[in-house]
């Protein structure tokens, strides 16, 4: 925990620095009265439709879920990669390689399935 203390300190500093910059820009920035047309959403001349919130295609949601699946699988490979050299040096190289090969086979099958089921196609 004490190892992370500098990280928190820096985060707090960056937030204070950012707030100070924004406050400074607010203080010396030009002033103008807000008016209805200016406060409108900027949409290149299209009259904005305030009744609906912006909608997003479900494709993004699908991408996010697939990402979580694959990213967690990739994170599993980090400790394996870290200890790979030690296992080889002790003569257990083939064992640790085959252990990960089985995991990778599942990973590749998943990727293959994903491509085949057209989950990754954007039109």
């Amino acid at each position, binding site marked *: 925990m004490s*190892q992370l203390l*500098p990280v928190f*300190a*820096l*985060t707090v*500093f*960056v*937030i204070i*620095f*950012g*707030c100070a*910059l*924004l406050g*400074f*820009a*607010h203080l*010396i*920035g*030009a002033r103008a009265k*807000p008016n*209805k047309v*200016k*406060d*409108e*959403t*900027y*949409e*290149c001349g299209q009259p*904005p439709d305030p009744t609906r*919130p*912006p909608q*997003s295609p479900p494709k*993004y949601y699908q*991408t*996010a879920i697939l*990402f979580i699946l*694959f*990213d967690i699988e*990739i994170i599993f*490979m*980090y400790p394996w*990669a*870290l200890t*790979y*050299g030690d296992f*080889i*040096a002790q*003569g257990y*190289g*083939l064992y640790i*390689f085959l252990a990960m*090969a089985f995991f*990778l086979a599942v*990973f590749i099958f998943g*990727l293959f399935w*994903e*491509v085949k089921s057209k989950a*990754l*196609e*954007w039109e």
Partner: protein
Amino acid sequence: MGADVFEITVNFVKMVAIFLLMVQIVPLLVWVERRGSAYIQNRFGPNRVGPLGLTQLLADAVKFLTKEDFVPGRGYPFIYYAAPIVAMIPAALALNAIPLSSPVHVEAFEMLGQTWGPYVFLAQGYEFGIGVVFVLGVSSLAAYALLLAGYGSNNKYSMYGALRASAQTISYELAMGLSIVGVILLFNTFNFTEMIAQQAGPLVFSLFGHKVEALSFLPNWGIFYQPLGAIILFAAMFAEANRLPFDLPEAEGELVAGYHTEYSGFKFNMFFIGEYGHMFVASLLMVIFYFGGYTLPGVNPETVGKWFADFSPTKASLLTALVLHGVLMAKVVFFLWIFIWVRWTLPRFRYDQLMDLGWRTMLPWALANTILTAIFILIARHPWGS
């Protein structure tokens, strides 16, 4: 060795200095970008204000500060203001975890009637055993800033830009994470300093239990073991930093200006600090993983330390750190220039092509790179005959 007031102060000042280094590199890079793009496209670029247009940066800063502080009428002010600040945090945290030079050893000295030290100051804000994982984890938080910007502006185009940005960032993170697995297989460590230490010296490796020294005129850099991984990582870095040819989140032909449509003045500038900070971190990672970090053939902490043998140990170690920092920055500047060079050379991808490239081309290639690296390392490092 407990931390005392002096050590804590120096470490905090160091963190702030590294953060300010990131902030001040932005105007310089903007200048290089504008002059460089003008050079590539046969134009003049900013050349009126000051020598070579250098004081254009100051003029820009003044303009940013004096612009009206505008909040869109239908936006959410708190989220709208928070987004640019959040954009600076990930790059600052990642940059502080990367060593910028060799550590500085300070001998014990007298100050205010008290003996202080000896100290060892690392040339980075903080060091973790899991440096690589920390940098990866922190820098992927950048997607939140873009999402907050899109949500806070409450604008259709901003929202689409933010969604595109997050989808693209996470898609390329897979290829990036996998290509780094190859690096970790090679060096067997998460620590940047140890990676650099392993790359100092000539290119000598063992094959079937024999030492191969035929290529010892080359430095022992990761690029010679991981060429494919280096290419994949560098390409994924462009997508992570939202740079052309992967800058779909701000494709002005389709989305007005993407997630920063409603931003102006200094708030807009802060997104740029985040973006250039990411380029800086990406270049540093490339240099440390594949190009020997702060070492060159014949230039590493030991040899440079001997150049300054006449000075006192504290001074010698400080000068060594400065020289090595210069070497590192020279390499980093080269990669930053490649970022700019590519931006003004290649056209933008279409969105479906972008996602296709990420998922169906780069991810399988990165996977193949990992498997091949594992097989080669298994063969090369196996204790044959013993």
